[in-house]
């Protein structure tokens, strides 16, 4: 068997098959559905692990299929792809476990998990897309298959949020498609190769290329929630907790940020993009987003909204890192792709536990939650410290490389953005932790023992955030190991910049 061809295909296909099978499962067949879910997610982790190991040994994985005349569908695994793919695979398994616990006894579970699996299919496709066409196809697919998850509850508020979500993302998708088509007309099919394949065109067709870059990045910027394209994200918070965790930590928002990385380094080429003068404005927009998101997060009482604005802010670290360019800043941006994912999913899952167990949704109701749910809030605190950038949590490593990289690239102002953002992060995260642990507990919650069960919350809900928090801790503490996010990011950047 030609594994170099089949493994990349199996990566999205395994979730696709799982998804289709789950649609066929009847609502009450809980065991069958759970088995399928966990089997699909586990198989994917094994696949990713195998590919990571084999890639580290120097094997290349690529699948090329005929799509249209002169236009191939390409799935190719490089280290950047592996980073995104392994992040998705791990978090997917954990979120699935969480979702099984979260949706216990609620209606339409087959529909939910079916689309859930289709989401991971699209994300895997985005991760290992080997050319712009493949990327766009999976990107649009992601837009479509997440909609049913946003509106899952079917309430008026959910439907409204769904409309906003579609409005933004379809608009973004159209711009992306427009940009891709224009680029195709200019330069032919765009393979993702380091440094891009625009060649001479960078000199001869400057204006068009700048416009195309604008279209592509605006299209991607919707999902990456760059201000002012971020409006859909806080609204989408009506979705169930696992969806928020998934959308906000991994799939949708990361697809946008990841796309920006691909466009800059693999379509245009870092030097060429810098030569076109498009990176400076992008970096400024990212910086504005970082500060704006943090400022908005400060005033949110609704916990999920506070997290959503924090996501808006944190995502732009990635954009900022790659827009500043230079190998160190790129490491910072790319590693934050992983770190922000693990940290933010921890926070969202914890908030889900709090809401499910105690019915608390707002900061003003959080007094003493930490004494009733010490493990949950402990993990939340770890995630919060990570977001602020306190070592040894993963966020520190991101901030460190972003800062060093920005200075190496001669962009000292970025340091000011990072410092401001750290202060603001502390300002909107630490009060949550303080209130939860150091204010008296409300009596109506009763004590842990009265709730029954061995743990403070349902085990299926409690275990995933503990796991992700430990991952975030390990990612920072053992950043020096080769298969840590930092290690992988460095390998990925070495592919771009040379060792």
């Amino acid at each position, binding site marked *: 068997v030609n594994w170099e061809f089949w493994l990349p295909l199996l990566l999205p296909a395994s979730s696709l098959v799982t998804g289709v099978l789950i649609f066929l499962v009847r609502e009450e067949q809980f065991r069958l559905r759970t088995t399928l879910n966990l089997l699909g997610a586990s198989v994917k982790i094994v696949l990713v692990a195998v590919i990571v190991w084999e890639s580290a040994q120097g094997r290349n994985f690529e699948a090329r299929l005929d799509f249209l005349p002169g236009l191939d569908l390409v799935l190719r695994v490089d280290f950047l792809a592996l980073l995104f793919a392994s992040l998705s695979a791990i978090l997917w398994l954990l979120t699935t476990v969480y979702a099984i616990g979260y949706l216990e006894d609620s209606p339409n579970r087959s529909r939910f998990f079916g689309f859930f699996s289709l989401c991971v299919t699209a994300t895997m496709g985005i991760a290992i897309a080997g050319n712009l066409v493949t990327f766009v196809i999976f990107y649009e697919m992601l837009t479509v298959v997440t909609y049913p998850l946003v509106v899952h509850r079917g309430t008026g508020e959910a439907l409204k949020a769904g409309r906003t979500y579609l409005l933004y993302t379809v608009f973004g998708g159209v711009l992306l498609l427009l940009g891709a088509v224009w680029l195709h007309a200019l330069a032919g099919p765009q393979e993702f190769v380091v440094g891009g394949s625009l060649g001479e065109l960078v000199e001869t067709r400057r204006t068009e290329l700048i416009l195309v870059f604008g279209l592509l990045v605006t299209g991607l910027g919707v999902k990456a929630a760059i201000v002012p394209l971020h409006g859909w994200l806080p609204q989408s918070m009506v979705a169930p907790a696992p969806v928020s965790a998934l959308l906000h930590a991994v799939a949708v928002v990361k697809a946008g940020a990841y796309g920006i990385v691909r466009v800059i380094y693999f379509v245009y080429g870092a030097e060429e993009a810098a030569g076109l003068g498009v990176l400076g404005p992008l970096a400024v927009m990212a910086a504005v987003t970082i500060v704006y998101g943090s400022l908005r997060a400060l*005033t949110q009482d609704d916990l999920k909204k506070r997290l959503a604005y924090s996501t808006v802010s944190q995502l732009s670290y990635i954009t900022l890192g790659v827009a500043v360019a230079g190998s160190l800043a790129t490491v910072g941006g790319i590693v934050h792709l992983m770190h922000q994912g693990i940290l933010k999913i921890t926070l969202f899952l914890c908030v889900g536990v709090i809401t499910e167990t105690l019915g608390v949704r707002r900061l003003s109701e959080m007094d003493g939650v930490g004494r009733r749910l010490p493990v949950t809030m402990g993990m939340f605190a770890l995630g919060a410290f990570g977001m602020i*950038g306190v070592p040894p949590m993963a966020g520190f490593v991101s901030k*460190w490389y972003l800062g060093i990289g920005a200075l190496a690239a001669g962009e000292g102002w970025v340091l000011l953005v*990072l410092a401001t953002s750290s202060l603001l992060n502390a*300002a909107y995260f630490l009060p949550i932790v303080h209130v939860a642990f150091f204010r008296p507990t409300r009596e109506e919650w009763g004590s842990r023992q009265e709730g029954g069960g061995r743990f403070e919350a349902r085990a299926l809900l409690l275990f995933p955030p503990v796991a992700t928090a430990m991952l975030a801790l390990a990612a920072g503490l053992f*950043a*020096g190991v080769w298969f840590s996010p930092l290690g992988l990011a460095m390998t990925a950047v070495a592919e771009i910049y040379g060792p």
Partner: protein
Amino acid sequence: MSGLLLAAVLLPAAVALLLIPRGGVRVLALALAPWTPLPALALALRGAEIEVTPFPWLLLGARIGLDLTGQVFLLFTALLWTAAGVYARAYLRDDPGVVRFFIFHLLTLTGNLGLLVAHDVATFYLFFAFMTFAAYPLVVYAGDSAARRAGRVYLILAVLGETMLLAGFLLAVQAGGGLDLESVAAGVAASPRQGLVAGLILGGFGVKAGALPLHVWLPLAHPVAPTPASAVLSGSMIKAGLLGWIRFLPLGEAALPGWGAVVLALGLVAAFFGVLIGVLQDDAKTALAYSSISQMGILNVGIGIGLTNPEGWSSALAATLAYATHHGLAKGALFLGVGVAAAAATAGRTARLATAAGLGFAALAVAGAPLTSGSVAKGYLKEVAALSPGAWPVLLDWLLPLTAVGTTLLMARFLSLALWPDAARAHGHLTRGLWAPWAALLVALAVVVWALPTAYELEVEPPALPYPGAVWVSIWPIVAGLLLAWLALVLRRRRAVGLVPPRVAAGDLLVPLERTAGRASRLLRTTQFPPPLTPVVDLATRWYGLYAEADHESRTRRAEHRLGLWPTAGLLLVVLALALLAALAAG
């Protein structure tokens, strides 16, 4: 060996984790908890350096080792933490929060130990931040409004400090090209933004070291924590800021005369400022916190010399190490003594006399009385003061003894507060668990600084035993201070001083700042702004609201501040200082 060192550092944190689950393990861990600094203490007492070893898989490539500076810091830090741990077991014997206290006590301890052995910037930053944040629950332990206010101010300044450090470190690493201590310090000197980088590092660590004007959290947080936590906060954690300066400023490598002068000047101002505000306090622990600000100001002298005169650094470092050890142990003993005295107040006459003797000894040591560790430390500092540039040696020669006058006054004030606690503050039983660790610390205070130069081959001569001149040099400030205190007492009794000294609440500069912010917030809320400004105004007032969460209780308590003889004494000191300065200027 460095693996062992790392294990010794992480041991307290491991025991803290064992405290979390209920049951038998917890009982065992609680019994173990006070003794967890012992392996680290053993490594410090070994008297040998431990070669810096890289741990490439840890963080951004950690480097762990124990150099001379690390050994000395580790010695007094481990001693103090052990004493405080044993003391805490007795102090919190009947406290339901004892497990919570010890979890964070141990985590903070790991942070404090870890930063002493860290030899790269990321690991240092990790342990420093770990210590800072783990200490927060100790600060707010009491849970009343005073503790919450102290916690807020502590956290805000700590986060500010951490952020300054991150920015400073990044700039220094970029310029220096490596994460190890030497490269970072060299990077500070080599950076094209040298002034900024040095300022960020001075300020970032200055928060922890209680440097003016970043000290405002300290007189709030140190006293409000449980007494054993106050001891380590004011005795050893405050020194983490000092160590940060030693580690990351290019001391002995490059001269930064501008910042050096600022450090020297601010240090001297702090030395007097701490005393002046300190004598106006009516709480023993707050007075001690202000004494810490004052003493850390004196420690600035060593750093200032290192910044202005690179050749003088190795002697200045030795003096700084001796002084830090002396102050760490003495301040720890004084804080623990406050609790002992409070318990002894209800015990017999012998106990009270013994307590008075012990506290008196520690107070005399801080003031620098002959034959105490203070006289040794001050002697070293006086010697290296000659290495400072320009007119500084003359100035220091005059002002350092004068700070000792002030310290004597402050210590007299402290003793009067600690030995005669009012009814509300006299509490607890004088158990062995309370007095034994305190007594052990006093013994350590009596001997350690004398042994330091020989034990660790410091670049200073061990002091020759007292000769008449030396005795007089260290004795006159004490006599002068005591005379001042006596004079103040007499004058006050006869109501001869018509001047009313100002009231200064703990937190000094913070109080008018809070008041201004409150006024501004009220003004903003009652004023109409054009629409684009409303969200900004809203944000500002909301944030003030979050900060100010009413704490009337502590405010009224502060308003009841009695005017006593101490403000008068403080005022006299200012007059004396001004007179001497005038004489100096005229001469």
